[in-house]
């Protein structure tokens, strides 16, 4: 049921300087001619080039690569936040984007009050929210703190709430930007159990991470990205080994 298919997808995004954001300046340029100023106002970054990829249910894809390789851009395309400039993107199944956890949480409201909106933003249905409202307070173990504003929570408590919210709704396709972590030792174990259980019920998982250990443990295949292209896609050990060899033997920048 869940499937992802990218065919020769390219994506670029603009980076605006102050000048590039001004309507007045843009209008004047049109009128006067753009050769007057050396400041282009807008620079385009080619984030993804000719990406082709196919994933089906059961695939857990890890994305590795240096900063700027295009991992986040690819996740955002899969999430439906950005759209390709060229190529086709076909996605089937319910996508839960966990690119930025803590979305929709209002620190002024209580733990209880902070369950519905984050889940609604992720696309949850009413029945799922009802179930979550019962299950989350119990699982997080926050007890009386659920009735207090999130503003007073410790980082660990916030992490527990966000983690519980992230794993509350069933996804056909799960997109993760970095692994879910943080919290005290007892929680980490509890979290791992819940997460593993959650992943078995998810069709496709795409995880972008710099933590190669996690990638090896969780993913069934790994895509190595560099400068907007996929260099290779294969089994985790192979790809990671190739990636490490390439980065370690990279020439240091001359002084």
């Amino acid at each position, binding site marked *: 049921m869940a499937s992802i298919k990218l065919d020769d997808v390219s994506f670029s995004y603009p980076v605006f300087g102050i000048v590039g954001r001004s309507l007045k300046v843009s209008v004047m340029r049109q009128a006067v001619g753009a050769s007057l100023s050396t400041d282009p106002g807008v620079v385009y970054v080619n984030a993804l080039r000719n990406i082709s990829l196919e994933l089906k249910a059961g695939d857990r894809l890890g994305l590795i690569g240096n900063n700027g390789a295009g991992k986040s851009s690819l996740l955002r395309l899969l999430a439906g936040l950005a759209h390709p400039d060229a190529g086709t993107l076909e996605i089937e199944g319910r996508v839960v984007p966990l690119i930025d956890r803590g979305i929709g949480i209002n620190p002024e409201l209580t733990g209880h009050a902070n369950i519905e*909106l984050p889940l609604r933003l992720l696309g949850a249905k009413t029945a799922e929210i009802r179930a979550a409202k019962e299950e989350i307070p119990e699982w997080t173990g926050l007890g009386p703190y659920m009735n207090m504003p999130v503003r007073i929570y410790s980082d660990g408590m916030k992490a527990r709430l966000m983690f519980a919210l992230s794993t509350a709704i069933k996804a056909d396709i799960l997109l993760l930007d970095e692994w879910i972590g943080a919290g005290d030792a007892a929680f980490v174990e509890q979290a791992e159990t819940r997460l593993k259980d959650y992943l078995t019920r998810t069709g496709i998982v795409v995880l972008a991470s710099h933590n190669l250990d996690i990638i090896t443990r969780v993913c069934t295949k790994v895509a190595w990205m560099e400068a907007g292209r996929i260099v290779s896609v294969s089994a985790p050990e192979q790809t990671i080994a190739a990636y490490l060899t390439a980065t370690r033997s990279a020439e240091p920048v001359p002084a």
Partner: protein
Amino acid sequence: MSVFSDVGATFTRWRVWFLLGNQDISLRYRRSIIGPFWISLSLGAMVLGMGLLYSQIFTADIGTYLTWLGASFLVWILVSSMINEGCAVAMEAESQLRSVPLPLPVLAARMLHRNFVIFLHNTIVITVLMAMFGYRPGMELLYAPAGLAVLLMIGYFATLILAPLCLRFRDVPQIIGNMLQIVFFITPIIWMPSQGRVNPLIIQFNPFHHMLEIVRAPILGAPPTELNWIVTLSMLGGLMLISMVVLGLTRRRIFVWL
């Protein structure tokens, strides 16, 4: 995924804008005792103060003038807030728009919801104030909800045009704000058209006058004129068409413009 499913999300994902809008309102008044009435009371104080002073400047009857001023401000604040906030609708939701897909129409509805709630609070305070100066509503008041519905829809479709424009060009909100300040003075809000010395064409060619009239006139005891409806409904139709085109052109670019 298309323009129509985006607009349809206003209905299918109504809880998202309803919850976000409620949060916006509660955040504005958190830890205050009287809550949203805070803004309404300061509006009431301003209308009272201006009413007392300007009725003397215009040599008008205090009761007539104050009810005029109250009703004018009540509707003007809704109109100008919808336009100013409509510009910012995408920018204020930047963190959500970077993480989860959230169609622009849903954000427009959020803005309308919070402005509508504030409008209701303002109505209560302004009505009490006007009543103290002899105002009594008539049957014509029943026209007001229709006018209000048209105004809200105008705000909705105008937002779908303004929000992407302001997101891409960050000086536009300022330009819009300045224009609204000028509109405030050339539209009958503080001054009554019946005071005669202004060329009536200036009033009738001003679309904002008609937008105010479809809600204000019923409040003050007269149904809106045919011309009021013609102008506002034409505006609504035009905005609907233009907004669908703009939405179609810009919806894929919202993320990269953030």
